[in-house]
């Protein structure tokens, strides 16, 4: 899996609450079984003007991610419950393939957050007031931040910093870019022992299929 240690770059803000994964990547944009090709599709309903289906896309010049400098953003500052809704991992593939490596929000949809961890995207939770302050700075277009997972710290160019908390186990996995399935398979003996005992304890789980 892709590691995350730190990123440095432009931050863009999208502060509407409850931005859902249907907006991040509408179902109609998922037209292939591949995990690639989603960068241009991120937030398609907002990023492009309404055109007849099949017609070439026309960028909405007013949308923040189409404007300089935010079209080069690597960090997104977002409102609460970001990534709520559908479990589609393509939402995170779109975020990552657009070039975003970190989303900072007061809260996240639970499945989206889990999908971020599997794709080298760092979901940082900060109190609403701190998120709003960063969003205000980002809106001025001069917001270049460093998000450092080793230090659990967000640093502004002037050196001022904000700390954040991150689950210790998830932090280690992200820093090392460790494959989560490989890590679990190290527990294979424990899994097999559990299953052996469970066949005795709850035979209906195993013997009715």
């Amino acid at each position, binding site marked *: 899996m892709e590691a995350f240690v730190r990123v440095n770059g432009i931050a863009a803000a999208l502060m509407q*609450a409850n931005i*859902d994964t249907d907006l991040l990547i509408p179902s*109609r944009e998922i037209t292939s079984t591949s995990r690639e090709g989603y960068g241009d599709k991120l937030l398609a*309903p907002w990023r492009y003007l309404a055109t007849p289906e099949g017609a070439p896309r026309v960028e909405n010049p007013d949308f923040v991610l189409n404007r300089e400098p935010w079209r080069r953003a690597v960090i997104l500052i977002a409102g609460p419950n970001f990534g709520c809704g559908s479990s589609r991992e393509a939402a995170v593939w779109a975020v990552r393939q657009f070039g975003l490596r970190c989303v900072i929000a007061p809260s996240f949809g639970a499945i989206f957050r889990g999908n971020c961890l599997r794709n080298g995207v760092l979901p940082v939770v900060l109190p609403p007031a701190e998120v709003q302050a960063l969003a205000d700075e980002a809106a001025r277009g001069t917001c270049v931040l460093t998000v450092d997972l080793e230090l659990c710290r967000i640093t502004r160019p002037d050196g001022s910093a904000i700390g954040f908390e991150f689950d210790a186990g998830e932090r280690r996995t992200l820093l090392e870019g460790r494959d*989560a399935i490989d890590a*679990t*398979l190290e527990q294979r003996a424990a899994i097999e022992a559990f299953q052996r005992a469970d066949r005795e304890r709850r*035979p209906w789980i195993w013997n009715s299929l």
Partner: protein
Amino acid sequence: MRRVAAPRNIIDKIWDAHAVAELDGQTLLHVDRVFLHERTGPAVFAGLAEAGRRPLAPQLVFGTMDHIVDTTPGRGDATLMKGGRAFIEQFRAGARAHGIRLFDIGDARQGIVHVVSPEQGIALPGCTLVCCDSHTCTVGGLGALAWGIGSSEGEHALATQTLARRKPRTMRVCFEGALGAGVTAKDMILALIARHGAAGGAGHAIEFAGAAVRALPVEGRLTLCNMAVEFGAWTGLVAPDEVTFEWLHGRPFAPQGALWDAAVAHWRTLASDAGAAFDAEIVFDVSHLAPQVSWGTNPGQTVAIDGRTPAAPDADAARALAYMDLAPGQPIAGTPIDAAFIGSCTNARLGDLRAAASLVAGQRVAPGVTALVVPGSTEVKRQAEAEGLHRVFIDAGFEWRESGCSLCFYCGGDSFDRPGRAARRVVSTTNRNFEGRQGPGVRTHLASPATVAASAIAGCIADPRGLWGPRAGAR
């Protein structure tokens, strides 16, 4: 001295019974059942193949075709959605290669995953179940601990039959009182989300409890738990009881004979102990609850059917009202509609169709309204047809479809538009009113099957209570 165990809630009990190991503050949980579908299944199989992995226990894994398969009569592998055939074929090939049971197109057991897994007795009380779909929490209605995951976690669940998680906080939501006629489980959950917000349950696993929940049939409990994710919760469940056991008994994959007896004895121990602690508690009296309808673009933006849109909207509400083409302070009832949709993992079970049919019997869908009924499973469709419900709907002017997720979401292709008539406003028994969810620019109003049926007939958002008769038994 005898040691007395601390009281545990149902979430603690199921969690503890599935703990394989403790790692880095997370619990490695055994996953008893994995369900896959054709929308995300191909990515799961491709990921496994890339890493040279195989499912650890394919006998615990099931698949169904629901998300993008057509629901039009005579369907096959071709889809109205562009590129859909590849999803269907790759999913079928992967299931075959790994020896995974698949409820394929044409199989009598095919249907929406969260309708099929309880109906077939695959989801069981006290089991853990995951699926690459956010509404997997639905089967919490049986007392299962079930949650939605992404494709990568789907690979993880297949390859290891486990997932690692930090234990969630727990919440109990007690629905007290008794529902009035024409008010349903859908209205309970919409009202809860309206009161506490679309993130009101964030970070929690929820036990739905209280007299109004105990009084719900299993189908209503499934509806309630279906929308736990719309409340921001990790999952939700209802403690299994005699109603659950009676409903499950004899289902195809449910345990039989001595295994059944042993299972029920265990399931009776799952209910939260007296005095068990929860991290949060909500009490909600449903005695005077009215049918609910969403007005905005998240499920928390909901009002009673006799209510109005916010008179003084904040920025988010103003944005939602603009998308929905509604004015501040406008009554929600009477808003003209272009389409009515009865379907989805929320509200397409037999009881839902019975409730809707009882309101449309002998009536006609209003002119200019596209009205669809999409049964939640092929088995629901069969039972409904055996009761003649399809005739009631067809005679009233509804389309009667094959089972699948259908227009709960728009994936390109099928839509509510009809020649010369673009559908903009839909009243729908589904779970998401997000911008564009049911089509570009489409405005969705979430409601119960009764409210959707009443609205289809009236041609505008309508209160079902005046029409609610003695035949409308199902909640």
